């Protein structure tokens, strides 16, 4: 273990910030989704880094749970995007501005 844990945390922090930039600036709902996956992945990376440096596997168990939630979220979220697209013919989030039509 020659690499200090801060390096992993910096990497994960940069990944998270990239995800935040994507969520805040992109117009396409699917790219926003991909940015959310980036943020979840950076959280996973932090869990695994701490699990490895503290010497127990509990962090890795939590990564399983995060992955499951991410998969469920992707399935339902994309279904919602597809349902919205069917009605509005767009996935740009600044054009989807009413709840009911």
């Amino acid at each position: 273990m020659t690499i200090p844990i801060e390096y992993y945390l910096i990497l994960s922090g940069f990944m998270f910030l990239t995800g935040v930039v994507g969520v805040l600036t992109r117009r396409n709902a699917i790219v926003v989704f991909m940015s959310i996956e980036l943020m979840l992945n950076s959280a996973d990376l932090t869990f695994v880094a701490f699990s490895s440096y503290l010497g127990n596997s509990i962090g890795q168990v939590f990564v399983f749970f995060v992955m499951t939630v991410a998969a469920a979220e992707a399935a339902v979220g994309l279904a919602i995007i597809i349902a919205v697209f069917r009605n509005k013919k767009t996935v740009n989030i600044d054009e989807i501005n009413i709840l009911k039509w």
Partner: protein
Amino acid sequence: MIEQYIPVFIVIIVAVIFAVATVVMSKLMGPQRPNSEKESTYESGLKPIGTTNERVSIKYYLVAMLFIVFDLEVIFVYPWAVQFKKLYSQIGISIFFSMLVFLVVLELGFLYVYKKGGFKWD
């Protein structure tokens, strides 16, 4: 520890070299006499219609979504199966039923989609 992964790296490197070399070599060594018939999209002898960038059907999405759920089921079953003997000696038969409950819950969703006709292809 990291030395255990050297075979994996070798496989990745060989795969990349093979893929790149195949494309590059066929470009370099093959004869190239293009004409309009050869350049057109291959469509089993028919005239190609429309664009290749078509939207796909929603049916594929349903299949992909079902796949992801059962993909997750597999990754949960795997560590359980690896440790089953040890868990059985510690906890007893209830370790079998706790996995069975998980599987039955997921199969309920499968049955629901099946009953709703999610697998009808047309």
